[in-house]
């Protein structure tokens, strides 16, 4: 459990609290919650709900990054899998739809993993290939249209609620727990961290580093597939042109905000998801603020820099405070 909730999350939690506080200032009703048609309703829920795709992406991405890789194709994979789900939704049952979509994500991940682990391509270019071609494949499936569906099952996946909590949030939480259990409950976590920390040494210690790399890309593909299905379910249609566009950058950002180094090694699933929430809290805040949209990117840039500086080991003042806080904890 220590690995799931590490000691190092203080900076991230602090950043989240600060951004939440700012959101409260720009939008006084930010923390209001009410029940609406058996579903919780309020800005906080929006943050969680809208944060779901990036959170799911970051779950896969964090593992890839831990092996010193990167996956630029997740946005395109989202589009592919969303398109598949949408095209099948009205003619097939939900399990079939899900199996097809997640299977496609798995194949995409295998392809990336094959290029990186077997052909030895550099991850950025290897996944750039699918980033470019993948969106084309998605558009091929939808022929550039927005494919809509009305299957209540799939719609429920995007808009339904269990115990008042929207389903996407629960799926993301479930995936976090599942990934955590798989990674930390087996030796996978250790071996992934070893592979990312020093692949040569790990190989010599008998770690199947190729298998590790293949596995993380596959998982990343599956997570992206799920994110794609949820995104499609959310708008009751697959928008192959825009689904997941540029989300790979948000996912990478989330992982880095979550304290995982782009040079591989130590990773934290919880903090990566927290990173995704930080980003979404900021996005929602921007939307609520009522500033003209020309400012969106500027605000984002400033907040990202601020959050990163907060974590910088070199800012000794803050690091000192953290160290002191940590010492007072049991």
């Amino acid at each position: 459990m220590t690995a799931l909730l590490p000691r190092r999350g203080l900076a991230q939690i602090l950043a989240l609290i600060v951004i939440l506080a700012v959101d409260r200032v720009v939008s006084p009703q930010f923390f209001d919650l009410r029940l609406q048609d058996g579903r919780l309703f309020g800005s906080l829920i929006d943050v969680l709900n809208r944060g779901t795709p990036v959170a799911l992406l970051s779950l896969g991405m964090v593992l890839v990054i831990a092996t010193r890789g990167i996956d630029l194709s997740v946005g395109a994979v989202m589009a592919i899998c969303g398109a598949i789900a949408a095209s099948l939704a009205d003619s097939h049952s939900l399990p079939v739809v899900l199996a097809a979509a997640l299977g496609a994500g798995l194949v995409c991940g295998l392809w990336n993993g094959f290029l990186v682990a077997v052909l030895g391509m550099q991850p950025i270019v290897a996944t750039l290939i699918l980033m470019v071609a993948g969106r084309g494949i998605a558009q091929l499936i939808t022929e550039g249209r927005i494919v809509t569906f009305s299957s209540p099952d799939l719609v429920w996946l995007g808009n339904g609620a269990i115990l008042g909590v929207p389903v996407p949030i629960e799926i993301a939480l479930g995936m976090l727990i599942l990934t955590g259990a798989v990674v930390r409950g087996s030796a996978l976590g250790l071996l992934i961290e070893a592979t990312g920390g020093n692949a040569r040494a790990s190989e010599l210690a008998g770690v199947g580093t190729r298998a590790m790399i293949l596995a993380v890309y596959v998982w990343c593909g599956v997570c992206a597939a799920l994110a794609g299905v949820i995104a499609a379910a959310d708008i009751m249609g697959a928008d192959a042109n825009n689904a997941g566009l540029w989300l790979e950058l948000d996912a990478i950002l989330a992982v880095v905000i979550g304290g995982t180094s782009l040079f591989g090694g130590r990773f934290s699933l919880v903090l990566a998801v927290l990173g995704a929430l930080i980003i979404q809290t900021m996005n929602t805040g921007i939307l609520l603020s009522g500033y003209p949209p020309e400012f969106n990117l500027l605000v984002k840039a400033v907040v990202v820099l601020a959050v990163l500086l907060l974590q910088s080991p070199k800012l000794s003042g803050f690091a000192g405070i953290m160290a002191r806080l940590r010492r007072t904890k049991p």
Partner: protein
Amino acid sequence: AELTVGFSQIGSESGWRAAETSVSKQEATKRKVNLKIADAQQKQENQIKAIRSFIAQNVDAIFLAPVVSTGWDSVLKEAKEAKIPVVLLDRDIDPSGKDLYLTAVTSDSVHEGAVAGEWLAKTVGDKACNVVELQGTVGASVAANRKKGFDTAIAKHANLKVVRSQTGDFTRAKGKEVMESFIKAEGGGKNICAVYAHNDDMMVGAIQAMKEAGLKPGKDILTVSIDAVPDIFKAMVAGEANATVELTPNMAGPAFDAVAAFKEKGTVPPKWIQTESRLLTAADDPQKEYDSKKGLGY
């Protein structure tokens, strides 16, 4: 002789764009024109490259759907030197290039915004009305124009006020997300009387957001948007959308005719062939509109 026409298309960022491409192909087949389409993936530099390679291939005419209004002078000069007529589709370019193209088959996006605004003003009457606006992509000229047209149209009516305006990037997902936050920020939607979206896709997303918030789009909150894609008629049939301004995807048809006439008889077409910006509401038999548009590749 069979004509070869190179068409530098922007990309396929929306259903409307996909429809424009497929309608262009249909029109080309109808007229036995050999149409070469180069997709620019939303990038002006790619469009310039495409035009250059069309020139290198010595096509009979070039169609250009410019991603942005400026920056075409030098490449169009090259086309002119090569004596290849250029027809602009869907958007106009900067005035300094008027002599560089044969004609422009476009709609007027400022006018589109104005039509939407006038409809809203008329429908609301004297009631005070807070409007929220879903803008297109920041920096896109269509977005700026549709905003401008709408703003001028409602400026004459003091009771209409745009209280919130944020970009929804022309997409459904962002339209929904932005509308969600508008609803939260405006007292659960109680303070909103109408939504204006720069395209139908965003409106479809916004309609979902309203429904999820327990509001009745089309009744509690009026909707008006632009493009007339099939899905907005579906919403109209369900009584969830009020009005849309049509932007026809058939820009290539008139363009082919103009080029053919110019090539065969030397007829110089007017500088601007404006397409109609029809206002379509629930009163205009949305089901029929839906059926007629369904097959066009939206």
